[in-house]
Every structure is written in structure tokens, then in C-alpha cells.
């Protein structure tokens, strides 16, 4: 086993003597590659830049995070391991891979170095590359990981103000915040925007003896806060909505144990999806999810009915 070590050293010395000087031959190549890379990097930085999404909103549990692309394959792999097995995929497997990589030179100790002379390890490497690539592509394509939630800039600004003005000191949204005032996502849906605006100008003018302070907000700020509150509120739906669901959707979907098995259970859909996503999904699932097995309902149901259904569904599981 150890004999080839000396053999190798002798041979390496020979090759080294026959070889070229590191400078300038290798250094030239290194510099050229670095130069080209920097060109590409600068081009991307200049043309595309680094984008910011809206400010982090810890109450917005409907946000579907997309990891940095080089972690995508891991996320995709996680989906194959449901429930308690998730920790196997998330921690045990990657840990094992890193351990195997780390100790690789201690296991693979022969003298053969050419990839074709090491068919097992070469094959393993190629398989790993193919697997990671396939998972990354799959993760990228799969829209259910990350529905693009377009947000109205007014709403974003409102969310920022809500945080900055510490409204959560008195109010709860999605279960987080204080108890002095009402839970805003529960009650605000019933109010008109005009009512909300008047209330913001002077709470006690609308609700006598209100404990909510007058905040002296600017018009823009009032608009933004109103838009934000409207966007998080459970909007009222009619008695028709559950019936529409029973007639059109229950063949495939369950709500609280009632319904079919073809599609996912929608009992808690409101905690995962926002209303605009649901509207778009009902109108034409294929637009959001090219592989969808659900029929489009645009044309079958009126826009009002779809809106009604979406309001009903987005109130579930909140």
C-alpha cells in the first residue's frame, strides 16, 4: 500500500522539473479567468442589481419563503420526507454527506487518479451532480413553493407604518400583539375605508371615549394604513360561499372532514395562501401551477362568486 507513495514522490519530482514555472504561465491563466469573471459579475451587478423585497413582516405567515437558489435542492428534497422524517432529510443526510466528503481521502487510498480508473467514485459524482441539478430545476419550477405574491406599495408602506407606530402595543393581528384594542384582522373587514379614515383622523369622533390615541397622521399615512388593514382583514363572505364550495369543489377538496380526496384538504388554506392567490388559482390554476390537475373556473363561476369563495377560503385556518 505505502510503496506507491515513494514511487509517486519520485515521479512527481520528475514531472515538476520538466514542468513550467508557475509565474507567468499559470498566473496568466488565473488572471485572465479572474478578469472575465469580474466582467460578468460587474455586468450582472450593474444591469440587475440586488433587489429588496418588502420589509420583513413577522405577522405575515402567508409568505412563502424561497431560499437562496443554491439551497433550493435541499428544500425540494425535504418535500419527499414528510412529517417526522423531515429531520432525516434536513440534517442527518447532509451531515452524512459532509462527513463522507471529509473522510473521503482516508477511504479512497489507492494510487489510481484518472476518473475512468475509478468508475465507482466517478459514477457517484456524476449521479450526485445529476440529482442536485434535477432537484434544483424541480424546485425552481414548482410554483407552489413560491406563489409570486404581488403587493400593492400602499399596503407595504402601511405595514411599515403599523410597525413603526407600534400599533401592536394595543392591537393583535393574526394572534400577535396587545389586548387593549380589538383584534384588527377580525373586526376591520366590517368597516368601510371611509370609516377607517375618519377613525384614524380622530378615533373618539367616531367611537366616543375611544382609548385609542389621536396620532396626527398625514393623509398619505392614513391611506397606507387603511390599505394595509383592508389587505389583512377577513373580508365578509356571504352565505352562498359554503354552498358554492359544496357544489363545485367538494368533489375534490375536503373542508373539516367533508369532501373528496383528489385535491388537498383546504381546512387551513387561509393560513398558507392569501386571497389574491386563491382568486387566481380558482380562475385558472394552470397559470400558477403548469402541472395543475384542477379545472379552471373562470367562465363557470362569475367574478363575484369567485371573490366570495376566495374570501371564504382565506378565512379558514386563520
Amino acid at each position: 500500500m505505502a510503496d506507491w507513495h515513494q514511487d509517486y514522490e519520485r515521479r512527481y519530482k520528475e514531472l515538476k522539473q520538466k514542468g513550467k514555472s508557475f509565474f507567468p504561465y499559470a498566473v496568466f491563466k488565473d488572471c485572465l479567468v479572474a478578469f472575465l469573471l469580474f466582467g460578468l459579475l460587474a455586468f450582472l451587478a450593474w444591469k440587475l442589481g440586488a433587489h429588496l423585497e418588502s420589509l420583513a413582516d413577522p405577522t405575515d405567515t402567508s409568505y412563502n419563503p424561497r431560499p437562496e437558489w443554491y439551497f433550493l435542492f435541499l428544500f425540494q428534497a425535504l418535500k419527499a420526507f414528510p412529517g417526522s422524517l423531515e429531520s432525516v432529510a434536513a440534517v442527518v443526510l447532509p451531515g452524512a454527506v459532509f462527513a463522507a466528503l471529509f473522510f473521503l481521502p482516508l477511504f479512497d487510498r489507492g494510487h489510481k487518479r484518472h476518473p475512468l480508473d475509478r468508475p465507482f467514485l466517478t459514477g457517484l459524482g456524476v449521479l450526485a451532480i445529476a440529482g442536485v441539478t434535477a432537484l434544483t430545476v424541480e424546485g425552481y419550477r414548482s410554483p407552489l413553493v413560491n406563489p409570486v405574491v404581488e403587493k400593492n406599495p400602499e399596503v407595504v408602506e402601511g405595514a411599515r407604518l403599523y410597525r413603526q407606530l407600534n400599533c401592536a402595543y394595543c392591537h393583535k393581528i393574526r394572534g400577535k400583539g396587545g389586548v387593549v384594542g380589538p383584534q384588527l384582522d377580525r373586526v376591520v373587514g366590517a368597516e368601510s375605508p371611509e370609516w377607517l379614515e375618519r377613525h384614524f383622523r380622530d378615533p373618539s369622533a367616531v367611537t366616543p371615549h375611544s382609548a385609542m390615541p389621536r396620532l396626527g397622521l398625514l393623509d398619505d399615512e392614513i391611506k397606507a394604513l387603511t390599505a394595509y388593514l383592508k389587505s389583512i382583514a377577513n373580508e365578509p363572505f356571504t352565505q352562498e360561499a359554503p354552498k358554492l364550495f359544496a357544489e363545485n369543489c367538494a368533489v375534490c377538496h375536503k373542508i373539516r372532514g367533508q369532501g373528496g380526496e383528489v385535491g388537498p384538504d383546504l381546512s387551513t388554506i387561509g393560513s398558507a395562501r392569501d386571497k389574491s392567490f386563491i382568486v387566481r388559482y380558482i380562475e385558472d390554476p394552470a397559470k400558477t401551477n403548469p402541472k395543475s390537475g384542477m379545472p379552471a373556473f373562470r367562465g363557470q363561476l362569475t367574478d363575484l362568486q369567485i371573490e366570495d369563495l376566495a374570501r371564504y377560503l382565506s378565512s379558514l385556518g386563520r
Partner: protein
Amino acid sequence: MKRRCRAVGEWLRRRTGCDRVWETLFARHIPEAEGPTAWLYTLGSATLFIFVVQAVTGALLAMNYVPSPDHAYDSVRFINEKVLCGSFIHGLHHFGASFMVVLVVLHMLRVYFMGAYKYPREGTWMVGVVLLLVVIGFGFTGYLLPWDQKAYWATMVGTNIAGQTPFVGPLVSKILKGGGEMGASTLTRFYALHVLVLPAVVLLLIGIHLFLVVWHGISEPPERARRRGEGNPLG
């Protein structure tokens, strides 16, 4: 004038031994690699180069960045909109992070497929695997810093995953987050890791890595075993 230059050169040589350093680092001979193979050997130095870009742009970003939940987002917006060349520098750092990950993996693959981790370069490889982990650590901690939606929620998922590790999970997740919930202490922790701890660790490791590379000499391109040294009983 010329004589004076030479005198200065001689002075420096005497005190620093820079000529010897030049000889060992640059004037050393390396086995010849031909054609496209030779270019595969540039991946390591390309990784090093992008790391330098990250360090420079990162230091520039750190001059305007504020690691607190109340100001992080606005400070990054300030960098993008107001700071001279800010959006360009931010862009360089943003894409540089991806470049770094890609290059380090490609570099590892070239070493893997060429069997360059074998005797006597086992140590170089092992340091390399730790370097790979550190680079991933950079990416993970950096992702939170802009404190926007994707930063917050992706890190939430990431720390929750870390929390699932058997036995030590909850502790690890608590240490990363700086408490039970994500918030100000998570951000300051990630920031300290990203700009203080990891750079120190990575510099040390790169130092060892490169020392070993020069010490053992760069590996020769692999040859098919059959052709290798006729009359060699092992060949």
C-alpha cells in the same frame, strides 16, 4: 538613480527575504497540464479572487449597514438609493455570493474527479471541506441581513430546520436565533458571524489551504493507470 533603486531592493531583500518568497510562491515549477485541463486548475484561484471581491464589497457595505430590525431594511435601501455606487456595490456582493458558491463547488468537483485529494494532499482536501461549510455559512448568515420578507422567512425556515437536529437541535436553533424567537438578537448574531467570525475563520483556513497547496506542489493531471510508468508493478 538605477543604483539607488538597486540599493533599496537589496535593503528590502536583506530584511524581508522577499526574493525567497517570490521563488517559493511564483518562480516554482509545476507539472505541465495541457489544453483545457490546464484551465481547470484556475478554479481555486478564481474562488480566492471572488472571496477578495466579497471582502472588499462587504467592508464597503458594512460602512452604511445597520444591524437592527428597525434600521437594517432602511439602511440597505439607503445603500441602494443614496450611497455613491451603492447599488453597484450591493449588486457585486449579491451576485458575488452566488459566484463564490458555484466556483467553490466547481473547484471541489475538479479535485474530486481528478483524484487530487489523494496522497499527499489529504489535508488540503479536508481543510477544503471545512472551507465549503464556511462558505455556505456566509451565504446563510448573509441572506438574513437585508431584513426583507425573503430574508426573514427563509431564515425562519432555515433555523427551524437546524432546530430539528436530533438531540442538539433546539439548542442550536436557540443559539442561532439568540432566543426563542427571531428578532433583534438574531440579526446582530448573524451580522457578527457574517462580518467578524466567519471572515476570521475563513482567512485562517485559506491560509492553511494555500500553504498546503504550495508545500505539496500542485498535482499533475491524472493519467490512465495502464499507461503510467511501464515496468511499474503497480501501474
